[in-house]
């Protein structure tokens, strides 16, 4: 019985966002689309399913119809002529399927739009609108709630962090035969704070070990943190402006408290983008420390001679998947190639690559939205085909989100490859000081 008023309230909230929270940039994009449809072939989702609804133009049009209805004269007077549409439950449901189920916010269409608009920015606005209407997928919402209540999406306690790191530190000492090697936690005044994706602590501890090895080899003054260490930000995926700011602010305040000069973001595309590019805008202030990706830091160590690598330690052919948020939205394009050229015997590029690379299909929170799992795997076929064409045995990707999707694609499409972070590959090639 209470469902109808709740739906009406949700519609009202969405209408409030549509009327009041649209910015000039998004409005310009919505006014600029001419529905030429030339963007279709730039989208991995459309290339995989060939459905009209998956073209960026069709996805943009779902928002543009609402925009015309409430923000243009002809949309109000002659909605049929200009394809304007009132905000209804059906319109919102269709928009949710488009914005969460057919778009990973990868931005490849933005780079290739003939007009120059950014469909991904429009889809982010769509997600904000859908969030107001309570239509964010449950999996994404659950991650936001966990991050806000416990400080990380996997609700890992500070004690668990300390115990896991102690265990990894012991392993590192044994592996390199140096009892002085350490993986410091909560060290006040360290130069670098290395912040993690919680999945590393739970499922991929080897990537933390790799970072420990690399920082040790480079003689870095670094630390981990047992609290507020989470670089992921599902508020960003949800278009939840308040949540994305609050989540980013926890880690930023922690870094400020530790007094570090640099926040190094572990291999996580959207984590890097959120903290490096978006967080200062969300907080409305510059950060008192630099924010860099671990990829940039490793490349700097190598260029400065602080890291010596032996490529013969990685003899299998390696290809590279470029995470959209790190590369297309972050500008970290060449560093990973520089590292791989020095860390492996054979490095094979995918085609296309760099900022033109296709999304793996797991971006934009798709991995957390189980209702779209089938579509995610279908969209990943384009990436699977790219990988297969390289003939590589190892796929490197500096993003744990991409790695989850790539591992699933590996199983689903029987690619027969090994999926690794860049840090793991670099750590395998490290030549420690005093050894040959």
């Amino acid at each position, binding site marked *: 019985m209470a469902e109808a008023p709740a739906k009406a309230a949700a519609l009202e909230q969405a209408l409030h966002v549509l009327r009041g*929270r649209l*910015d*000039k*940039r998004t*409005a*310009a*994009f919505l*006014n*600029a*689309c*001419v*529905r*030429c*449809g*030339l963007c*279709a*072939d*730039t989208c991995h989702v459309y290339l995989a399913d060939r459905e*009209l609804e998956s*073209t960026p133009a*069709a996805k943009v049009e779902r928002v543009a119809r609402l925009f015309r209805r409430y*923000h*243009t004269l*002809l949309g109000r007077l002659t909605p049929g*002529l*200009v*394809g304007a549409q009132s905000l209804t439950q059906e319109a919102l449901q269709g928009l949710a399927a488009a914005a969460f189920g057919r778009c990973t916010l990868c931005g490849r269409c*933005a*780079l*290739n*739009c*003939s*007009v*120059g*608009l*950014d469909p991904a920015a429009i889809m982010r606005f769509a997600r904000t609108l859908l969030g107001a209407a309570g239509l964010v997928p449950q999996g994404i919402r659950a991650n936001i709630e966990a991050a806000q209540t416990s400080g990380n999406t996997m609700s890992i306690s500070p004690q668990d962090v300390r115990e896991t790191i102690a265990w990894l530190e012991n392993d590192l000492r044994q592996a390199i035969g140096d009892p002085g090697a350490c993986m410091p936690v909560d060290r006040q005044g360290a130069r670098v704070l290395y912040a993690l994706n919680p999945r590393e602590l739970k499922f991929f501890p080897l990537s933390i070990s790799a970072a420990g090895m690399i920082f040790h080899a480079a003689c870095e003054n670094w630390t981990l943190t047992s609290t507020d260490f989470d670089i992921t930000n599902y508020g960003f995926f949800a278009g939840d402006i308040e949540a994305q700011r609050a989540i980013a602010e926890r880690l930023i305040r922690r870094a400020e408290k530790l007094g570090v000069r640099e926040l190094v973001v572990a291999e996580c595309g959207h984590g890097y983008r959120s903290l*490096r*590019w978006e*967080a200062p*805008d969300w907080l*409305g*202030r*510059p*950060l008192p420390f*630099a*924010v860099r990706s671990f990829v940039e830091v490793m*490349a700097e160590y190598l*260029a400065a001679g602080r890291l010596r690598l032996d490529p013969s330690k990685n003899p299998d052919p390696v290809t590279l998947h470029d995470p959209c948020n790190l590369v*297309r*939205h*972050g*500008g*970290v*394009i*060449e*560093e990973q190639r*520089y590292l791989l*050229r020095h860390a492996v015997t054979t490095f094979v590029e995918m085609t296309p690559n760099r*900022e*033109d690379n296709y999304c793996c299909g797991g971006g934009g929170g798709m991995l957390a939205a189980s209702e779209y799992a089938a579509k995610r795997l279908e969209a990943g076929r384009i990436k699977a085909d790219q990988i297969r064409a390289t003939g590589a045995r190892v796929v490197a990707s500096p993003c744990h989100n991409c790695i989850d999707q790539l591992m699933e694609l590996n199983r689903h499409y029987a690619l027969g490859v090994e999926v690794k972070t860049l840090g793991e590959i670099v750590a395998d090639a490290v030549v420690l000081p005093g050894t040959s």
Partner: protein
Amino acid sequence: MTLASIALATALVTSVTMFLAQRFSTRFAAVPKAIAPARGSARAGVLYAFTKAFAPTAKESAALHLPSYLAGIGYHLGIFAALLRLLVSLLPVAVPAAANMILTVVLALGLACGLALLGKRTLDGRLRGISVPEDFLANLLVDVTLAAGLAASLDHGLMPWFQVTGAVLLLYAPLGKLRHVVFLLASRRWSGAYFGRRGVRPNPKAPGTDRG
């Protein structure tokens, strides 16, 4: 001044005013200045967006659809030529014969391209699927103006008809999809600055690379 000239001049002033009102409207929230330190250059990105990004090889949307891209170029050349001719028609100057000949060719090319794009929108299922009725109306309105311009370039006595169709087009432009003429510029500037600032396009040199 003829009645047609007065109508055209009035439509021009009205259209420009409406465009300016839309472009500088305070209806939408301002975009805050980006705070994070730049990796590249917003200015270089905007410059790229308005130069190299127009090359047929710069974007897949053009490279994979060269006939459509070329038709679009031809169409817009025709439109700009028509607008220029309309402006000149308001001035007390005569168009030299050679310029009129070039104008005739460009208008004919523009009209042919416009009709070709209209045909594509009608026949291509995918394009038809994302179209709204106004897509056809806007194209027809422009095509009629180009046809009138072509006719006027061949027979100057038809200039008033060209001016009247031009006036209708100018009055309609800020209302429908033709307003992309202004918002395209804004969009390119936004996205050019975005990708430029982040060092994506153009991409500055990184350690050990030769890409610049």
